[in-house]
């Protein structure tokens, strides 16, 4: 018989003593109840300490808390540690505060209800079993996919912390999109020089192995035991075994110049960067002709105008200050929310850049071989003051659509990741877990999540490196078996669960004989395949458990019995 210890939490007076007494009195003296103690505030470190001592002294094997919400205790246990000697899964909570006292108006009914809740909790505690804790050794090895600035910055940060990095690049050189950029908006140095420096730092670093002209072909295994098959352009293949993987494949630019947009006056931001870098101050020449006025037309192609805003203001300032050009920035919205942008924007205005806000897209026409932009400025406060304007500029800089890298879809399939907004890689949680993917041990960073400005990307690279270091630095990954488990005997290999698992934790694997899983590479005698949940990769959501048509999967910490016990219905 289970021996149960009862802890009664007064919750700082929210559960009054007479009420507690009325409830506990019914179970006093029952053989399975070892003791019951009262605490005024059980979720505090001191009380938890006393709780541990009680559990030890009385040799109980289950505990029931009568108090507030289980969430409250879970938070404080996670913070201060579970009371020693007790497996967290052997402890249940009856919520006498929110679900009883505060939810039932009538005192008598509340007592009745609370007693029922207590009995249910005791029943749950005695029918639950312990869940084993384990740990997985992690080697400090990582694979970073993509050799753009995100990949470069992450690789360097990881190497600095003593982690071995394979940096995979499908092209010949490192640098990626940043090589098209000449200047940062918020740093004095030139982008190219900065990249060159970082690349040479990488080549000197013995912890980073750059594997260029290589793509990822296949990925097996899970956190700590990934097996990545990579193929070089010349067809040779190699297998790497990183503990964690970072995806930093960046984005692509889609240049769509049809109809009037094919006119020679239109150029892209990237072309403008090159033009600015190639020309000698103080005169800007394009195809031998002097450029005196430039208009920036910020489109709505990307759903976010941040990058275009930064580039437009940055280039406009350079054009005004170094090349004496008149600049006009036409936009529906302008976003100057990044660090230092407000200042740049003000400076551009002070130097005479015109900012025109439109509601309806400007009309474009060709007048005397030049592009004329007709637009109504709606930035005036009064409606009557809105001006129709015609602008003739030597050059018009246009926004390009920033789209996911074409390999994204294929990579997602290989890596078992999800695609989110507009086809980019999806993060686990856009607010809280920005650089984690849906799979444990795989991170997504930089422009492959959504197009970003360089400074943002570098911040994100730092954040990602921190996450990877935090994961790997301990050398082990502690986990417990509160996960799903397949009974290979029952599995019909219908492939429902591998498809449904949001964390790609299920694969069809080989078993030697009944219920004996063969770790890949060890032993012979492959008999049959069945689904297998990797306990390190599983988040314990139970989706596969609910869906398996053969009822072959159980959630170890919440089997059917515990669900039925919670329903508290007759059998």
């Amino acid at each position: 018989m289970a021996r149960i210890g009862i802890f009664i939490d007064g919750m700082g007076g929210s559960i009054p003593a007479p009420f507690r007494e009325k409830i506990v009195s019914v179970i006093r003296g029952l053989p399975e109840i070892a003791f019951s103690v009262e605490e005024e505030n059980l979720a505090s470190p001191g009380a938890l300490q006393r709780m541990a001592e009680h559990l030890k002294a009385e040799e109980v094997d289950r505990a029931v808390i009568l108090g507030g919400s289980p969430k409250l205790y879970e938070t404080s246990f996670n913070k201060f540690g579970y009371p020693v000697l007790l497996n967290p899964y052997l402890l249940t909570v009856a919520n006498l505060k929110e679900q009883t006292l505060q939810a039932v108006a009538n005192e008598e009914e509340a007592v009745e209800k609370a007693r029922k809740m207590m009995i249910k909790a005791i029943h749950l505690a005695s029918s639950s079993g312990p869940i084993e804790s384990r740990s997985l050794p992690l080697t400090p090895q990582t694979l970073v996919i993509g050799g753009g600035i995100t990949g470069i910055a992450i690789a360097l940060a990881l190497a600095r912390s003593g982690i071995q990095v394979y940096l995979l690049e499908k092209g010949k050189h490192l640098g990626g999109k940043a090589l098209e950029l000449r200047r940062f908006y918020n740093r004095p140095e030139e982008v190219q020089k900065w990249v060159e420096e970082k690349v040479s730092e990488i080549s000197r670093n013995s912890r980073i192995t750059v594997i260029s002209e290589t793509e990822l072909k296949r990925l097996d295994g899970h956190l700590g035991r990934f097996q990545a098959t990579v193929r070089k352009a010349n067809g040779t293949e190699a297998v790497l075994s990183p503990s964690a993987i970072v995806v930093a494949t960046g984005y692509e630019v889609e240049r769509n110049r049809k109809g009037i947009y094919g006119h020679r006056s239109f150029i892209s931001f990237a072309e403008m960067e090159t033009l600015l870098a190639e020309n000698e101050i103080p005169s800007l020449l394009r195809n031998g002709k002097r450029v005196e006025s430039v208009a920036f037309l910020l489109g709505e192609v990307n759903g976010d105008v941040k990058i275009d805003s930064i580039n437009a203001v940055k280039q406009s300032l350079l054009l005004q200050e170094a090349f004496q050009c008149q600049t006009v920035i036409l936009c529906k919205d302008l976003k100057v929310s990044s660090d230092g942008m407000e200042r740049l924007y003000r400076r551009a205005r002070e130097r005479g850049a015109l900012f025109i806000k439109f509601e309806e897209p400007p009309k474009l026409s060709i007048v005397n071989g030049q592009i004329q932009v007709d637009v109504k400025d709606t930035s005036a406060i009064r409606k009557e003051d809105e001006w129709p304007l015609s602008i003739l500029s030597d050059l018009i800089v246009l926004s390009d659509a920033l789209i996911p890298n074409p390999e994204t879809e294929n990579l997602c399939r290989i890596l078992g990741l999800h695609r989110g907004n507009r086809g980019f890689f999806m993060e686990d949680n856009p607010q809280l877990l920005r650089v984690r993917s849906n799979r444990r041990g795989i991170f997504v960073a930089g422009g492959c999540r959504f197009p970003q400005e360089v400074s943002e990307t570098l911040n994100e690279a730092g954040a990602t490196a921190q996450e990877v270091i935090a994961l790997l630095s301990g050398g082990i990954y502690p986990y417990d078996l509160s996960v799903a488990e397949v009974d290979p005997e029952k599995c019909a290999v219908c492939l429902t669960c591998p498809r449904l698992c949001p964390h790609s934790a299920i694969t069809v694997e080989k078993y030697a004989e009944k219920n004996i899983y063969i770790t890949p590479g060890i032993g012979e005698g492959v008999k049959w395949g069945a689904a297998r949940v990797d306990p390190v990769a599983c988040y314990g959501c139970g989706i596969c458990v609910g869906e398996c048509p053969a009822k072959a999967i159980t959630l170890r910490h919440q089997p059917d019995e515990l669900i039925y016990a919670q329903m508290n219905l007759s059998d």
Partner: protein
Amino acid sequence: MVNFEPKIVAFCCDQSGYPAADMAGGLELNFPGNVEFVRVPCAGRIETLYLLKALERGADGVLIFACYEENCQFLRGNLRAKSRLSYAHRLLEKIGLEKERIEICHLATNCGPKLAETLHRKSEQLKKLGPNPAKI
């Protein structure tokens, strides 16, 4: 049937329904008398069988409190729950039981009032429908 107090089994997703129930209690919004909360890690954990078994074992109604669509921590657990619910509805129709007895309600952590309101509405509705005839 004067004092019929319907028994409701309320499955609560740990991400939304359960904290919402805590919040409703914290706001001292009364729950109908006969509700059993079942805490599940995700609405995707709820099997079709549980919905039916709950009715079989004596519940008069079943509610699923799941996250709003596109808000599931596990991507589509709430959608799986929804599709299992419609499967359960089809089975109920076949055996001639009112399908209103099982219902899903999408909410978020801060929807305590919505949860309490849904429970009350369900309870009233079940009072009109009468006790579940399929109890064994």
